[in-house]
């Protein structure tokens, strides 16, 4: 039993807390990115093998590919996380650019003031 999973889910919970309680738009965006970071940590942790080595064939393993395959950690989650990080950055960028305009229109970043749309 390791704490990796626990920490990952704590990050997700922290992000959720931030989303429901905080009022500042920037903080909400931070909360979102904390949630995705937690999920990334979980994803990376799944691929770990006890005593594993990075999935790179170094010179020591050039002639021992079976040994490499038996020791290296899972490469797929690492690739997935790479993709997912880019995606979360994109969402972040868009959110912040919208925040600029929200500030221009409403003069505040308090999401409780952003409620002109309701009927």
């Amino acid at each position, binding site marked *: 039993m390791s704490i990796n999973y626990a920490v990952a889910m704590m990050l997700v*919970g922290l992000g*959720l807390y931030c989303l429901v309680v905080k009022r500042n738009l920037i903080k909400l965006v931070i909360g979102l990115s904390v949630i995705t970071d937690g999920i990334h940590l979980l994803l990376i942790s799944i691929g770990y*093998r006890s005593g594993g080595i990075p*999935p*790179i064939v170094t010179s020591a393993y050039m002639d021992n590919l079976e040994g490499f*395959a038996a020791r290296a950690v899972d490469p*797929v989650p690492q690739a997935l996380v790479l*993709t997912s990080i880019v995606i979360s950055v994109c969402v972040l960028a868009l959110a912040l650019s919208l925040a600029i305009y929200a500030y221009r229109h409403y003069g505040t970043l308090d999401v409780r003031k952003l409620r002109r749309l309701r009927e």
Partner: protein
Amino acid sequence: MNREFLRLLTAVAVGLLLLVAVYAVLPSFGEFPQSRENTAVGQRILEEAPSQTGATNVVTSVVWGYRGYDTFGEATVLFTAVVGVLMVLRAGGRRE
């Protein structure tokens, strides 16, 4: 105050639920390649990638080889975000 406490409680509940689920559903930490010995995709890629792609970095061969389409999608996401940000921050309003 009361309302905020309720919200906090909901977030904590969801977090706790996920915490329990993670330990119940997922194989425990460090147990790759999971229960399915040698049929997990990651394990098969580790065995086959050095000979199939010739790359020493297996992650690279996943990113650019086996899952190259995802990378294409990722580039498109980036492009989407760039267009979106450019659009939001463009100069001028209605042309009229």
